[in-house]
């Protein structure tokens, strides 16, 4: 029987870590992810798990030590947010090119400055080209479920890529919700034992990691990373299908909410999807055909699948919780629009920025976007390139 509990998102991830009992966790505190290493340290202090915790002196070292541990043959992970992730930036690229299957619990927070501790996606979006798998959670349940699936995807021999398990700072990390936990023996059986093929501490076969690669070799490294990312698409779905068997919960690249017959749709990622669903329910009650596409997997980017799912709507709003300062749009907006262009899906699209630095995104916010979309759909309003939700006047 699954376990019904009430937990914050950070507690849910810490609980998943406890159930997985990984080998090594280096970490450095940063709001709002700090609770995760605190809780893991407490599990260790109370003898509940035998993970080795390294209280490093910075996030730069937490990523470096996680990489060392992973290369050595251990199942290793860390947690961070915002500036912590930025401080790891160089190593994010190295971890991906070294093909280290490690997991980072990322609690999304605005990337300074001005300094701000609240949620947006500017931290992980800045790392979107580093070669990491990125999966986003809407709520605590998904934060837990995604984390349980993380090592299976990352460690798959066809993938071998680092994994960023993202959830929204404070909104899910600190809010307590009902959650359904899976029994520990089932989690352990699902995640399995980690026995890598090549690792530093293999006495039979030493290994060298992190070479200097000249131009005749470097490009193939990148090509292989791309192949691995492509392979991850299948593995993510396979692991999700297996996960459904032990949990009853279904996961894919994205979730479609009332999208089948929708005429107007919002594309969004993370906790704001829940708020958007409430707005959709209210609009549907008035007979307005609104729908949602909630992106779960951002890397690898399921571009074709997203475009296919959106092809029948009349107007779509893509909501970004991060700037990219291209002055043309945000990262999710750019990629969704590019995917539609590539697949010949010609839907009127507008890109919004919302929730930056923790700005509230309410049911009214979502409704106002849908109201714009209705006008765009009936031709009474031209779609702007990008707009803001909830900007101070």
């Amino acid at each position, binding site marked *: 029987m699954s376990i019904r509990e009430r937990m914050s998102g950070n507690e849910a991830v810490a609980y998943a870590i406890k159930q997985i009992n990984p080998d090594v966790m280096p970490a450095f505190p940063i709001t709002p992810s700090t609770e995760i290493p605190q809780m893991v340290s407490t599990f260790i202090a109370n003898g509940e798990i035998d993970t080795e915790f390294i209280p490093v002196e910075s996030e730069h070292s937490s990523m*470096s030590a996680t990489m060392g541990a992973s290369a050595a043959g*251990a199942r290793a992970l860390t947690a961070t947010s915002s500036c912590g992730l930025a401080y790891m930036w160089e190593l994010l690229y190295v971890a991906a090119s070294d093909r280290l299957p490690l997991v980072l619990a990322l609690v999304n927070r605005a990337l300074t400055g001005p300094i701000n501790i609240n949620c947006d996606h500017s931290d992980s979006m800045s790392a979107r080209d580093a070669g990491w798998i990125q999966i986003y959670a809407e709520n605590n349940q998904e934060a837990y479920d995604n984390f349980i699936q993380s090592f299976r995807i990352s460690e798959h021999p066809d993938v071998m890529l680092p994994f960023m398990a993202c959830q929204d700072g404070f909104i899910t990390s600190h809010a307590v919700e009902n959650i359904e936990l899976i029994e520990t023996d089932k989690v352990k059986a699902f995640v399995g034992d980690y026995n890598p093929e090549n690792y530093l501490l293999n006495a039979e076969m030493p290994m060298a*990691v992190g070479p200097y690669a000249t131009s005749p070799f470097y490009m193939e490294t990148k090509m292989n990373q791309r192949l691995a990312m492509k392979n991850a698409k299948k593995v993510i779905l396979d692991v999700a299908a297996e996960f459904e068997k032990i949990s009853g919960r279904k996961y894919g690249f994205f979730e479609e909410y009332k999208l089948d017959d929708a005429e107007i749709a919002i594309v969004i990622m993370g906790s704001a999807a829940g708020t958007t669903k409430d707005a959709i329910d209210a609009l549907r009650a008035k007979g307005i055909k609104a729908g949602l596409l909630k992106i779960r997997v951002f890397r690898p980017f399921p571009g074709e699948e997203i475009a296919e799912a959106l092809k029948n709507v009349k107007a779509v709003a893509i909501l970004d919780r991060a700037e990219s300062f291209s002055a043309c749009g945000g990262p999710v907006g750019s990629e969704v629009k590019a995917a539609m262009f590539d697949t010949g899906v010609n839907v009127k699209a507008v890109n919004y920025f919302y929730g930056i630095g923790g700005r509230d995104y309410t049911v009214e916010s979502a409704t106002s976007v849908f109201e714009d979309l209705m006008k765009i759909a009936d031709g009474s309003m031209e779609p702007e390139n990008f707009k803001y939700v909830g900007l101070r006047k």
Partner: protein
Amino acid sequence: MAFNFKEVMNKPERLAPGHRMCAGCGGTIVARTVLRALKPEDKAVIGNATGCMEVSTFMYPYTAWEDSYMHNAFENAGATLSGIETAYNALKKKGKVTENYKFITFGGDGGTYDIGFQSLSGAMERNHDMVYVCYDNGAYMNTGIQRSSATPMYADTTTTPVGSQSVGKMQNRKDLASIIASHDVPYVAQSTLLGTMKDLYEKAEKAIYTPGAAFLNVMAPCPRGWRYDTPDIMKICKLAVETCYWPLFEVVEGKWILNYEPKKKLPIEDFLRPQGRFAHLFKPGNEELLAQYQAEVDRRWEDLLFKCSR
């Protein structure tokens, strides 16, 4: 065990020939000597900060390292090795690794004194069972002889060039061995390349087989950056010791021990003169700079004698 030169030299090489380090490179001699101090039956994982040694020994698809090896980045060799060492503890506890492993990392002074200083400090303070070996050639040699905090005063480097308004680097070198000793680690030593390499070999052996964190600061001349006649490397190292520019000492569990005191301390000019990077100090009118240099060497030497007398 008494040092037996023949026996030591007959140990198998753990850094294979065929790497691309310069002829006469001090850093390579440091690495080979330190690795010889491993018991042949012990396995090792070698770490390496980005630098000459890394780009010259592990150029894809070839590696010169017989042991497992990991290069991560320039500034994180300490943290990377602490992760590897911790993984070893975790996997050994779980019975997944049964052999004995030792952990040694090499970094130049750039990766150690400067950009990797925080990572090193953290690893030392946490007292991981590892040895960090700095091959100190006193500048960023891999990028073309830029000054570091290990660069000695008045050295001519590409970022402290000697010119009509410049006499080279204006600051003294950072005393890193002393700083790491202040981390209260079980073993710190300073060494260089001397005679049979007995001093370095024995210190490496102690560092490797002392449980906990150990730090070796080894002066490793770079013929390119120092501009001396390449075959003179051993003479240069001896002069560094005989002038008390580079004293040999250990700090064992906080106790400072002087390993060598010259019978007759040579003037610092003897160490500086053969090196092109100090040639300007010997031009007429720069006598005062040499006197200042000597005063600084004397001050540091007296300070060391004081530490070792307690």
